[in-house]
């Protein structure tokens, strides 16, 4: 029982991290109808920027305070992501308005290659560390209830808290601010939003900026867990089942989907994996999502698909 719960908690934590990446997908898809394959590359790019700034700032500015240095690095990386968002809108999206979804998907694949290449050219292609002072020692819970208790990574716990805070902040931003309302209007109907005077281009820049910050947070957490390296960009492929499971247009869907996928992956790997040779978590997530899709083709929380001929 203890072991089962431990796996379950591990899955929930991992799921939270998937949710973070999935959130980036959902934000951009909602606002601009672009299925942003570059989200993974953005995570890598942001994490690389963060890692290198965190390295350079103490080195060149002589800043001793770790917290201050990290905050500065985070801010600078966020600025870099804003520039990326602005450039993407200016150079790519603006010219592809009204194109088919497939064409846009391919364009973001092009952006993926570009970001992978330029990120590693600018910031180097070794493995870097992000040290934001996350606690590393594992925590023991329920030692009195179970034999041996449940071991939980404090790091994971902190990550989950950060993710939850980010989601709360995002929903506040979407529900309470004027910009948030404009974003929701654009997500609802491009033409109607434009006709009442909401500037589409600016909204797209904003939403890519938000996605950039989400990518930065995701990159920071993944990076401090696993180290910043090229394989970080494949995290997008891990988050895709989350997105379609939760529904492409739903923020809560991304969170719940992430948790389901995280738990499903871990439980399958631990309890099913040994029988078939292991390493099944990556495709199991997809099969799980596929099973859901067969029952609900629009995902758990997606908008109902209505066909008109």
């Amino acid at each position, binding site marked *: 029982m203890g072991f089962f719960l431990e796996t379950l908690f591990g899955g929930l934590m991992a799921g939270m991290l998937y949710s973070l990446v999935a959130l980036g997908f959902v934000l951009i898809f909602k606002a601009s109808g672009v299925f942003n394959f570059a989200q993974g590359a953005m995570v890598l790019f942001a994490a690389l920027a963060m890692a290198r700034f965190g390295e350079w700032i103490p080195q060149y500015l002589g800043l001793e305070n770790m917290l201050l240095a990290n905050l500065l690095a985070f801010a600078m990386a966020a600025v870099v992501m804003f520039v990326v968002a602005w450039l993407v809108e200016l150079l790519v999206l603006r010219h592809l308005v009204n194109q088919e979804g497939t064409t846009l998907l391919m364009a973001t694949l*092009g952006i993926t290659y570009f970001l992978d*290449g330029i990120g590693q050219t600018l910031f180097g292609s070794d493995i870097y560390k992000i040290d934001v002072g996350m606690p590393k020692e594992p925590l023991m819970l329920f030692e009195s209830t179970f034999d041996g208790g449940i071991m939980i990574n404090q790091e994971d716990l902190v990550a989950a808290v950060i993710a939850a805070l980010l989601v709360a902040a995002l929903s506040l931003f979407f529900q309470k601010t004027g910009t948030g309302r404009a974003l929701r209007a654009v997500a609802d109907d491009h033409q109607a939003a434009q006709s009442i005077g909401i500037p589409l281009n600016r909204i797209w820049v904003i939403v890519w900026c938000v996605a950039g910050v989400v990518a930065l947070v995701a990159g920071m957490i993944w990076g401090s867990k696993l180290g910043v390296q090229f394989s970080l960009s494949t995290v997008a492929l891990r988050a895709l089942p989350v997105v*379609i499971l939760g529904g492409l247009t739903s923020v809560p869907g991304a969170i719940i989907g992430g948790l389901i996928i995280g738990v499903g992956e871990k439980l399958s790997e631990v309890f099913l994996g040994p029988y078939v040779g292991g390493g099944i978590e990556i495709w199991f997530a997809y099969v799980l999502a596929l099973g859901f899709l067969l029952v609900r083709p629009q995902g758990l929380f997606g908008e109902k698909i209505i066909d008109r001929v």
Partner: protein
Amino acid sequence: MFYRENGQFKTSYQADQQIFPITQDRWGVLLIVAFAFVGVPFLADEYMFRAILIPFLIMALAALGVNILVGYCGQISLGSGAFMAVGAYAAYNWFIRIDGMPLIVALLLGGFFATLVGIFFGIPSLRVRGLYLAVATLAAQFFCDWAFLRIKWFTNDSASGTAAVADLQVFGLPLDSPLAKYLFCLSVLVVFGVLAKNLVRSAIGREWMAIRDMDVAASVIGIRPMYAKLSAFAVSSFIVGVAGALWAFIYLGSWEPAAFSVDRSFQLLFMVILGGMGSIMGSFFGAGFIIVLPIIINQVLPFLGEIAGVSVSTAALTHAEQIIFGSLIVWFLIVEPHGLAKLWSVAKQKLRIWPFPH
């Protein structure tokens, strides 16, 4: 002026319905095929065959298969790499486990098993559409990646997980020189090209296109969506499977599952989109573009670096290659979202009305 159909009168339905109704087209295509069979072997050297022509022919075949699914039936698939892998490993197992199995039969069996897998993973297309389907087909990709890596039976229990074939023969002729390989791939491509071209202009092809344009409307006028979608998956994955077997047997010789990773699926989708969706010709253009582009970048960059007086390291070269490849693709999508096939038809129209602008 150069390309006018004036004076070419059709007197029978048969003449009206032929693949290339315009005489210039007919001769043009015949000349290109004849040149590919007779002219190219004299002109190309070994490097050309190995690095450009053979991969181009095989990937063109695969792109043809993907185009049937994505371009003609409108079902976006990111699992093409998996179907290539199934074709390759199925052909490998038949070839290696049965003594004296002829190569062509093994290739076709590879295609047959890819068809089965393709139909199976095509079933979600009956429920989900568009981008959801694209992600759903990734399930095929990751499942096959895993299966061929972990289940040792598929790789004939080889310790390193590498599959290899040797002593390929077709009708008693050995396929060992690049030239022989080139001619074999070319023949396969021509056969499948003609088949595909005829298929897409037949009843089933029109059903696929109706489904692509609007599947609800198509089902209202009596087209069975299940039959149309699954048949597109079947035909597409058969061709892709044969291409996968060719890629493994002829081009690679010995291979690992990584040869058919998700990157391969993206590459194939790039070929279809850049070449032109719903165009047989476009598949060839797209394959040529995607195969040749990295080679050109690879050759030109160090040269440019030399001129500028900078020595380019291999890592920097790889990254620069990624940057240029990515930006070229984005640029191309912006300039011509309908692909190279569209450029080709624009050029034909210009030739037709030259010297007048309209």
